[in-house]
């Protein structure tokens, strides 16, 4: 069990490392929540319920009244208090984004939407990876393979946000086929009713499509490379001699075996669902984890930002551990190599 023990120790070191680095870098960021709110108040006092010609005194009063001011203390005291609190599940309250609300509540409200979009995208990307990768390998060297390889290279080379912007512009604004932002139609009551669920899926189309259309190129090519290696194996020849259809050979015999090396990357991709969608969510004004993180950064909402970073890292570390530990389950050959 030496391997498992080392792996767990390393995960714990990583988590504490991220908390320490995250806490200090975030608190070292120039400006603070107070400066941000002050700037906002000067620019647009009406939004905060102040008269348009708000004096400096009004603004100061508002700041003192409504900003959840962290008590005056050194950063080290703050750090130790923070460390004690997070071990009790208390990540503090938001300063600006939603003053006074526990950040865990804010994250819990945003996370499901990000997971929703990303998991739709993951499923379709996996299907596309397997289909394209195994067919390309099966027809290796033909015109089909060459054309598809170029297509996959383009697919892997285009940043997803480019596709997102173009989709938003043409399909969203010009053709008006899909909504251009938001998570669901606000006319409907959130809950288990058909209107709301339908509207949530409808709003999820463009965001997830921008991931799907750009997400499978690189992995399909890597699957193709693994699959070509497998194609030389005897059991594929035997299957051909038995007269099985190409479809059956490429999906049943080829894809399953060539998926083995991809297991780790799939698990890591799953655990990364929470973290990566900052740009997409900003483009589609989709209130998920990414947009929450982005807004927290802009507003210097330190507790919200730190909690976001810590939770995303936690999921990621958990995912990589699970990937490493479960790999032996799906490929027993690995057990002798890594754990024995």
């Amino acid at each position, binding site marked *: 069990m030496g391997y498992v023990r080392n792996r767990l120790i390393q995960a714990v070191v*990583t988590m504490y*490392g*991220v908390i320490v*680095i*995250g806490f200090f*870098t*975030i608190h*070292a*960021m*120039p400006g603070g929540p107070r400066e941000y709110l002050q700037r906002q108040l000067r620019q647009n006092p009406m939004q905060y319920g102040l008269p348009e010609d708000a004096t400096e005194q009004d603004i100061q009063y508002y700041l003192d009244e409504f900003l959840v001011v962290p008590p005056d203390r050194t950063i080290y005291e703050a750090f130790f208090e923070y460390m004690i609190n997070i071990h009790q599940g208390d990540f503090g309250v938001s300063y600006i984004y939603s003053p006074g609300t526990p950040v865990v509540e804010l994250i819990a409200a945003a996370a499901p939407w990000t997971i929703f979009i990303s998991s739709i*995208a*993951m499923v379709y990307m*996996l299907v596309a*990876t397997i289909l394209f990768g195994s067919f390309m390998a099966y027809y290796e060297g033909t015109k089909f393979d*060459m054309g598809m*390889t*170029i297509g996959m*290279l383009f697919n892997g*080379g*285009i*940043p*997803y*946000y*480019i596709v997102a*912007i*173009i989709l938003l*512009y043409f399909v969203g*604004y010009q053709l008006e086929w899909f909504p251009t932002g938001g998570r669901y139609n606000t006319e409907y009551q959130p809950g288990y009713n058909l209107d709301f669920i339908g509207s949530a899926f409808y709003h999820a189309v463009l965001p997830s499509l921008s991931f799907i259309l750009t*997400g499978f190129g*690189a*992995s399909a*090519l*890597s699957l*193709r*490379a*693994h699959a*070509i*290696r497998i194609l*030389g194996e005897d059991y594929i020849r035997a299957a051909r001699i038995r007269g099985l259809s190409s479809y059956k050979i490429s999906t049943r015999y080829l894809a399953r075996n060539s998926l083995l*090396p991809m297991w780790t990357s799939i698990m*890591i*991709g*799953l655990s*990364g*669902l929470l*973290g*990566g969608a*900052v*740009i*997409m969510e*900003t483009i589609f004004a989709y209130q998920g984890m*990414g947009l929450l*993180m*982005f807004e927290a*950064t802009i507003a210097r909402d330190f507790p919200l930002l730190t909690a976001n*970073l810590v939770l*995303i*890292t936690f999921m*990621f*570390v958990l995912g990589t551990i699970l990937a490493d530990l479960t790999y032996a389950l799906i490929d027993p050959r690995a057990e002798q190599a890594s754990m024995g």
Partner: protein
Amino acid sequence: MATDESTIDADDSTVGNDDSPFHARAEYDATPGDVVLELLDIWVFTPARILWNDYRGRFGIILLSLYIAMGTVGTIVVPEPGIGQGDTLMQPFQSLEHPLGTDGLGQDMLGLMVHATPNMFRMIIAGAVFGGVLGIAIGLIAGYEGGTLDKVLMTITDSVGSIPGLPLLLILVALIDPSNPYLVGIILNIQGWTGAARGIRSQTLAIRKKEYVEVSEAMGESKSNILFKDALPELLPMIIFGFLGGATGIIHASVGLYFLGILPFDHLNWGVVLNHAYQQSGALYSLDAAHWLLIPAVVITGMTVAFVMLAQAFDQVFNPRVRARHEARKRNREDPELDDDGTVTSEDTTQVGIQ
């Protein structure tokens, strides 16, 4: 060892005897020029020829040269863009003065694209070199030294590697607020060395066991000599793949962060153009603004695709088996003796997921 002794004996006893099989003499002495030419042939001409013969390599080289021309000659030929150069939202391919049209602020699109290129290259070079050098150094040391140092270095590497990328960049960019393109490049590739370090460490572990490294050790070569002269050339493929992969990553990240408006707008960048097009009220509603979004999109995609294609083609340079198979296929005959090796070394670490 019998042969060794006889060699020495032969050398000692038969000086000047041209008949000795152990005393073959070169017909002529290699001049420094010949040596340089040969080295150039091994390290530059042959790889370049192989790249050029591969369709992806040729495509990548042509495309990348286009961007290099854009970043060097282009900046001299095309005037620097400024607000109010022409009417707003002029359509592309209509006038010679503004061949790609103008944006919503009346800036020449061609100028915006061209003058953003040099900084993009600065970011790529700084970031990729930073990632490469740190990755090589840590990977070599960890793999060669082993023991506790290896464990400590690898724990650090894995820890840095498992911090989520974009959130980390958001915080770092807000913290440092960089405007120097070299610094921006380094920040954008701040995690790039972790993958390289892991890969190079495992390769170094394998190389360490090879005979010629043992011989060098026995001969009392210094550690840095062994690492740089014996181990490093073997690692060249991995370093180049790391560099090209880093380049794509830096392009994606920089344009993304400029689009979000987090990086300071001191310099022109394609992401800044996208940001203006996205932010300007009404631009998304009007069909006239299509080129404002599409031109930067095409330019960004072209550059990343060039790097991706080059990376694919480099596989042929370093993987003679793959090359032989392709040659065989070109001549329309299958050679079943050549075994199917993995063709896409660079893609082995790809992850399915969202960046």
